[in-house]
């Protein structure tokens, strides 16, 4: 039995002639929470669609619990909780009807966490989901996933449309649940601060490639930003091997790297680059993400 809940091997996909990514490999350990980060169009939703069997990759395969995601058996699908971008649910149902509907499909169905969440919402029992706010809908979607009690949760941009309070509620509830019950989560979100509170591992994608896939704490420890002001504003360090990304405005430079402060300073000195105000900048995950992928 594999230790991975998700394994994607040599995944390649195109939309028409446009390459989305080539030979992408992803592994998600059982019991871990992986956050997939990427700019718009980097292939996050494409990956989620392949994982759920809604898109056939040009080549390569994704396995969930050892089964190809293009042909998941009902038993395996029952182990996967899926949150669609925008917390989409059957909007013509009310909270009682939707609970009754889903309960008929899952043997492990436990409605307690669902009603616990619903009790916090100010909705009437007959109010249709279509008339609820985005935040309320997010709680309905989350409650249904918790009641399903899946082993793996795939969440596509769970923070979309949520105000800060609901985002925090969603994340805290989710992390508590996942850690208490050893669940695996594969998630994307465009609000990266949210991910910082939630994930164990990070996968950062840029157009056509993976920039980082590792433990998020390790990544945050090893990936650094240095600020300096150089005398010669025409200097360009972007091609240097140790530079992951390089941003420059006039003579003010930001260097993003996995190397140490000492190594960077030695490099500058040994190459005769005059500088001042050298400083290591503390970064959050969002800063690190922008630092790695660039602002454009």
């Amino acid at each position, binding site marked *: 039995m594999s230790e991975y809940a998700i394994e994607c091997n040599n995944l390649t996909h195109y939309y028409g002639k446009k390459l989305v990514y080539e030979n992408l490999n992803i592994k998600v350990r059982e019991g871990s929470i992986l956050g997939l980060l990427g700019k718009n169009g980097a292939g996050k939703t494409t990956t989620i669609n392949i994982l759920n069997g809604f898109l056939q990759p040009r080549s390569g395969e994704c396995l969930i619990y050892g089964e190809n995601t293009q042909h998941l058996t009902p038993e395996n*699908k029952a182990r996967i909780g899926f949150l669609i971008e925008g917390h*989409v649910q059957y909007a013509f149902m009310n909270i009682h009807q939707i609970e*009754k509907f889903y309960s008929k499909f899952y043997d492990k169905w436990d409605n307690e966490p669902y009603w616990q969440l619903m009790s916090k919402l100010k909705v009437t029992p007959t109010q249709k989901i279509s008339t609820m706010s985005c935040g309320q809908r997010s709680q309905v979607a989350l409650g249904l996933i918790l009641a399903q009690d899946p082993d793996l949760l795939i969440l596509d941009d769970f923070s979309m449309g949520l105000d800060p309070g609901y985002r925090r509620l969603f994340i805290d509830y989710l992390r508590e649940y996942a850690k208490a019950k050893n669940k695996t989560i594969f998630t994307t979100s465009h609000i990266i601060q949210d991910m910082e509170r939630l994930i164990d591992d990070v996968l950062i994608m840029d157009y056509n490639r993976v920039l980082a896939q590792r433990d998020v704490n390790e990544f945050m420890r090893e990936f650094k930003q240095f600020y300096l002001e150089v005398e010669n504003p025409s200097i360009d360090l972007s091609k240097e091997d140790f530079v992951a990304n390089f941003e420059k405005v006039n003579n003010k430079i930001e260097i993003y790297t996995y190397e140490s402060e000492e190594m960077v300073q030695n490099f500058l000195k040994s190459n005769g680059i005059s500088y001042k105000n050298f400083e290591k900048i503390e970064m959050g995950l969002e800063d690190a993400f922008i630092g790695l992928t660039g602002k454009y």
Partner: protein
Amino acid sequence: MWKGMIYKEWLKIRWFLLIYAGIGILSVVYCFIRVQHDITFSSPNGYWYFLLFMGGQYFSLLKFLPGIGALAIAIAQYFPETVSKRIKLTFHLPLNENKALLTMWLFGAGTLFISYLLQFLLFTGLSLIYFPGDIFVPAISSILPWFLAGFACYNLTALIVLEPVWKYRIFYLIVAVLFVPLLLQSALTDGFSPVNPFMAVLVLLSSFSLLFSGYRFRKGEM
């Protein structure tokens, strides 16, 4: 699980179905109120002559009703699945995707069948009261293609609404626009009886067509 699927489909179409069934029954009753009126205000002989030799149809009001009902029920049933690609939720349920689609189809077509059957039985029963076999048997043969048109409308609407690729959607729409009117051609009473079995087979074949749209959606075609 099928109970869950039926519950979901019922929630989507219940009001459309009940309203349609009500309108269907009222329409059949209205046809015979008109028959009663015509018999009362002209002579029965004259009215029968009009039906037997002048191509008169006492049931023409029912012509478009099955098609309109099927269209409304199919849209009520399948359109909510396409809003925000909600069909993903259905495909993610722990059952085979084709089985899920066929359960949806079976429920929609089944409820349509029941409402058609109610109209048909009422129509036959009332016809038996008013007319001899020489009149009502050809009448039944004449209304059958209209019910077939209803099923064709239902199948093709499901196919078109669920189809993710616009060029296919337009192609299916053209097929529907060409095929459904064939079943609604004005013809003499009983004029359709030779082709009714052939048309029924064609409509039956279109029953499974929504599986093509479902397959294309699952492959991510856009």
